[in-house]
């Protein structure tokens, strides 16, 4: 790519006043990394229009470990897609790291995703024809400003961290579901994103593996202060997150904070 400057320096807009209906923060010092203002998403479905999001206001702070929780069809995935810049809202505004995504063209949105967002998919979505190493290396290659040595170091470091260094040359389809999701996590983290989005990351895993995956993400959240946002209806996941964002029929309800659970960590992580 022609210029390698992280886009978070460009077009940094102040989302301005935070929405009034929901308390925006419990710590005035934390940076607002995601801001949603009255986000509506409608899907045309034949002759009718399905309104998946009906006016969402949400602020996510750096270092948060949060989960969007709701019944099937409540709009969790839709919300994550808006935040993940893979889809645009019908109305309302979405700011990622201060950049309003509605004003970006495809190229800019792509770069926004590349530098600011990491994705963990329910179905892992690894490129099967590439090795574990190559899958993880991909975002670094796309960013383009790394030497071979840097890439090697960083990828192996992450693979070691998710416990798959020994599998670096394997193909994804030679791995178990849990292992694949670990690769996926490594890939999501390798580009040092501001926020990692994970749409039901444990849905395709058994409960033990699911727990391990959550453990891993939590650990990374603790050590690296990477912001995590899940969607889930898995009670075990819900119990592990610091902030629960309930969604029902396209509308957010009052968030809940698992203060008992690592509150201190979560908050101190927002430097």
């Amino acid at each position, binding site marked *: 790519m022609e210029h390698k400057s992280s886009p978070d320096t460009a077009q940094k807009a102040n989302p301005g006043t935070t929405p009034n209906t929901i308390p925006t923060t419990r710590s005035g010092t934390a940076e607002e990394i995601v801001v949603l203002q009255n986000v509506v998403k409608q899907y045309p479905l034949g002759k009718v229009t399905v309104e998946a999001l009906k006016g969402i206001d949400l602020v996510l702070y750096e270092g948060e470990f949060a989960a969007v929780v709701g019944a099937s069809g409540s709009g969790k995935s839709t919300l994550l*897609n808006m935040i993940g810049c*893979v889809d645009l809202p019908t109305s309302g505004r979405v700011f990622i790291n201060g950049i309003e995504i509605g004003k970006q063209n495809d190229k800019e949105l792509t770069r926004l995703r590349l530098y600011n967002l990491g994705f963990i998919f329910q179905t892992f*979505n690894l490129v*099967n*024809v*590439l090795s574990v190493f190559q899958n993880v290396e991909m*975002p670094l*290659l796309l960013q383009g400003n790394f030497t071979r040595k840097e890439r090697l170091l960083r990828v192996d470091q992450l693979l070691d961290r998710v416990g798959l260094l020994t599998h670096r040359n394997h193909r994804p389809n030679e791995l178990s579901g849990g292992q694949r999701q670990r690769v996926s996590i490594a890939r999501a983290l390798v580009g040092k994103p501001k926020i990692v989005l994970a749409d039901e990351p444990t849905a395709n895993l058994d409960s033990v593996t699911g727990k391990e995956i959550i453990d891993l993400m939590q650990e990374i959240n603790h050590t690296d202060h990477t912001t995590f946002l899940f969607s889930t209806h898995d009670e075990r996941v819900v119990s592990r997150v610091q902030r629960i964002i309930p969604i029902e029929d396209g509308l957010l309800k009052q968030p809940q904070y698992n203060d008992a659970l690592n509150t201190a960590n979560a908050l101190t992580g927002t430097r």
Partner: protein
Amino acid sequence: MDLAMLGLMNQLAWRSLWSHRAKSLVVGTVIALGVFILVLADALLDSIYDGMESSITSSITGQLQLYDKEAEDKLSLMGTLGNFLTQPHFGQIDDFEIVRHTVEKHPNVAAVIPMGTDSALIFSGNNMDQALQELRDALHLLAPLHSNQIMVALQSPIARVQAIIEHLNHEYKLIAQVTGQSKSTAAAMKNLKIVSAEDFWQQFALTPEPQLQFLDTRIAPLMDDSIPVFLELLGTDLERFQTHFGRFKIVKGAPVPSGRRGLLINDFQYEKIMKDRMARVFDSISELKASENTRIEENKALQDYINRRSKEYKKWILSFDGQTAETIAVELRQFLGLPKASLEILIPRFMDLTDDNFERRKTFFYEKIRPEIKLYPVNIGDDLTLNKFGNGDSQRVRLYGTFKFDGVENSGFSGLFHLVDMITFRELHGYLTEQQKIEIAALKEEFSTPEWDRNDVESALFDNAETEIDWSSFDNEFEPNQAPSSGINAEISADFQLNPEGSQSIISQINEAQQRVYPQSEIDRGATVSAAVILKDVSQLEQSEREIAALLDQAGLPVQVIDWQTASGQVGQMITVMKIVLFIFIIFVFSVSMVVVNNAMLMAIINRYGEIGTLRAIGASRNVIMGIFLIESFILTIIASLIGALAGLLFVIYLSHVGIPAPRLEIQFLFGGQRLYPTMNADNLYLGPLVILLVGVSATFYPALLATRVPPVVAMNARE
């Protein structure tokens, strides 16, 4: 996008190709096949071009042809076949010598050779011809004798001729009674009357040659057993032709002696068309057995051919005279063990050929029957009368031998022409020598043309005294006021008129024409239809063509220059046709590969929809997606093209060793011989892969563009 990314895309492409190997294999095979065929077709076409170029340039046209700028038709030396009713107008080069000197100044010119085509008929197989030939032979033997002695010595052959004339007189009386006196019958009867008259033979004693010519041209054709042989003639400077056309070879007889008038017949036509039909049955089977190991039992077409020919036995029997028929019948009865059978039974029985009896019968045919029959309508050494097609002009010329064009001898195309010397050609074609022009002008003065009465001419010819026959009654009745064309009578009489010394000089003139050795200057000086230019360095053809044209322009000569392909007419155009076919073929291969690659790529994109979405979601730009697919099809196309081209190359190399046999005789001409040994040059290798590469990439472009439109959101719903 840096090198590392390209590397990954490259790896992604290779691995995708591998993981979708069934698809890759299908697409690759189609592409490889396309390239293979293109490479092969291109190489073959080039080789055919070379073959044809060699066939044409080294047999007829030379590299360049010169002809009249004012010609109404494009010069086509080989394209007038089947079009002789409307003679094309190629104009004429008035003075070949000047053109030759002008063009020979060019350093790349090896030779300039005059040329012209015309057609002529010879009548043969005719009792009258034989009788006249006999008479001629006798005459030559007796040449030193005095005319009275000649007449005595010639009694027997003259009697034979007179008997035939008597027979014809009788025939024509019958014809006239039955069908009435048509113009042609009347003309025939008139001519018969001339030769029946005593003073014709008195004149013969004095000037035998003109009388013989009259008998040859006017009486011999009346015998309906005569076989007219149509000859397409190429008039040329025979000596230069033989030197500079590399494929020219004498087969039978000898070359025409330097500076002499003479005819060389194409051996292909001599053997394959003129030769006795029964003899040809034996020849063809022999050839097939020798070249292809054909067995009659296994070859239905050959059986049919033999069958058809043996049904011609009646025609064959008719061609025997009484004595021959008896001799052959005796031989055949003995050979077949049928002591009482007639020829009608014997011949079909004899021609019932099988693989077992063939060799014996062939030997028998050539040993016993062949000496009894006339194997060829004309024999080497014969003096033939060439009758100009369409009018009465004729030229006597000796058949010296047969020739072939090496390597293409069996092709019908190269058997198109017979060669005749330039002097004879000019006269046959109606180009008059300077001397003749003056004489004709003088003649016109003397008999102011419109009132030119045949009587004067004929009486001048046949009668120093008076004749008993009243020609004019015929003339007036049937050909009122017809001015003589430049027919033989006119010529003979013209000679006669212009040589007051007497008739003896006419013989000497005609003999002189036959026997004379023409100096090169006389062969050069005068008109020609066109001229072939033989170049030293053929690769300089185009440049030399331009420069020669410039030289001619500078010299103010109204002569244009064309290359061999144009000059050969329809035949040369076959190359163009083949090029068009190749072009259509390329388009076809192009379209098929396009569709296949396009479909395969669309399929690939549908299959990899989720993968594309995921890549987009994690930050791959549209360019990256485009690149991935383009690289993929590029790799596939390159590999398949290389395999295809390599296969094509190997196949051409293989073919260049074994050769492709010409499936038909005409094809030999295109192949430049009996087999085409194709060669490969670098150009042949570029074309196919280049075309396919273009196809591959352009056919991928649209699917790849679609791929870039895959929204990243599909990654979220992707199922593995």
